[in-house]
């Protein structure tokens, strides 16, 4: 789907081990994940499998004990706007309007006010909040806030979008609707996505690849390529996809993989 296939960026986590200070055992041991620029990789697994830790390594917020994290071959040593993060709690700035929040990355770069307002309005329209630019953050619902958070992350024009349970704090119905929003953004932004979630169905709908992690210490146990998100990108309806018997089968298989080895 990307024309310049040869120059596609890669976010690579290579044999990453993470060891937190004061912890007897490593949180993550020798995990390798490769996210291409048109991938939507979803990390799932039980609590304590280190999925958020791995995302933080990719973000540059956590330094691994061993292993290499790189984007385009350059080592990741600090956070950078080529890999923007969206957190579960939107982490928006309440002293700014929705538009100013979205324009934050542009403001940091010294983009002129008129230009950054124009860019921010474009992005707000993309997340279907075209008329909410002047709204204050506390006037928005949880789903709207998360949309602003996504638009803010996209404003930096990242190569990769790192999503840490972005739909985790939303109610079930909003979450359902946000799934298609995420897919639309993924297609529109040409950014690779690495996402952490607890939602099994969410993972199946969104991912081009699902990486299943198990705890104690965190390690990869399975990898799936469900392909439903490509079908959505090709124009198939989300309800039709979810009603497909293949979807139910995949859900069963993924659930088994997640709870494999756990005493019932």
């Amino acid at each position: 789907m990307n024309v310049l296939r040869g120059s596609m960026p890669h976010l690579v986590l290579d044999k990453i081990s993470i060891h937190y200070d004061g912890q007897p055992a490593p949180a993550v041991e020798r995990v390798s994940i490769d996210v291409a620029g048109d991938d939507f990789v979803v990390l799932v697994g039980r609590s304590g499998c280190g999925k958020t830790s791995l995302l933080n390594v990719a973000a540059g917020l956590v330094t691994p004990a061993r292993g290499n994290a790189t984007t385009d071959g350059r080592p990741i040593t600090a956070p950078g706007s080529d890999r923007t993060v969206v957190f579960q709690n939107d982490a928006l700035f309440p002293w700014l309007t929705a538009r100013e929040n979205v324009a934050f990355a542009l403001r940091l770069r010294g983009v002129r006010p008129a230009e950054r307002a124009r860019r921010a309005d474009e992005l707000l329209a993309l997340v279907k909040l075209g008329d909410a630019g002047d709204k204050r953050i506390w006037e928005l619902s949880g789903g709207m806030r998360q949309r602003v958070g996504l638009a803010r992350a996209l404003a930096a024009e990242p190569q990769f979008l790192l999503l840490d349970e972005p739909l985790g704090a939303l109610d079930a119905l909003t979450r359902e609707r946000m799934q298609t929003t995420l897919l639309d953004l993924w297609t529109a932004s040409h950014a690779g996505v690495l996402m952490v979630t607890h939602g099994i169905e969410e993972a199946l709908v969104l991912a081009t690849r699902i990486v299943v992690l198990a705890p104690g210490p965190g390690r990869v146990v399975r990898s799936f390529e469900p392909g439903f998100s490509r079908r959505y990108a090709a124009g198939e309806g989300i309800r039709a996809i979810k009603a497909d018997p293949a979807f139910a089968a995949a859900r069963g298989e993924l659930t088994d993989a997640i709870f494999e080895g756990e005493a019932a």
Partner: protein
Amino acid sequence: MTISSYTERAGHRTEEADGLSVPWSRPSPKRKGVSARMISAVTILLVLGAWGLSARLQLVSPVFLPSPVAVWNKFIVVARDSFVDATLLQHTVASLGRVFAALVAAILVGVPVGLAIGISTVGRGIFDPLLEFLRPIPPLAYLPLVIIWFGIGEPSKILVIAIAMLAPVALSTASGVRGVSQERIDAARSLGATRRQVVRHVILPSALPSILTGLRIALGAGWSTLVAAELVAATRGLGFMIQSAAQFLVTDVVIMGILVIAAIAFVLEFTIRRIERALVPWAGRE
């Protein structure tokens, strides 16, 4: 009076009447607020009444306890003419000027100090013990030292007030800074913010509600230090006015001065709360 005004309210609002019919149910916050204010008003009236009554019956000599009316008259006289060579307005302006000069000084020093405590271990190591040492000392205790070091001029008076204000400003700033959510900082960093930009664009605005609370507390602390600051070599000021009056046993001026100080403190508190609401409307709504 209480009963009549209460029934009047209950007639207007049916849900309050419901609340009244089940007295042991959890009161609605609204009803509780109204009745607390009512009780306060009644309390103040009762105190005023007791004061007026005891003055009227001459339970205490008027030299020690002038009547409310005498104090009110004195207020008019001093406001129009003067007491110890200055009108009430001039005394008030002198005192307010000192307190606000001290507030500016306390902000200029206290906010950076609080920021240093909040964001760096070195800063906390240096300033925390100093502030903890300074905080509990009453102004009257360090006043003599300030005078020995800085003389009896205006700077000493401002300094005494500023010292009292420093700890609340710095400590509130520090607690505001420490309360900034890590996610918010991480989000800004991932959007490309440098350390400096994080402080300027994320930490300071996040800490602003807490800083404003600190200013409000500091203003209270500074205002209550006023009399001490004006103990020595002042020629104007509400504290000076009270002390001069006390020396000549002009009790009505003493009481009037106390009430004026209290009234101004009340107005300041109210004003800052309004400023807080205008400046940080998001506080408590996140």
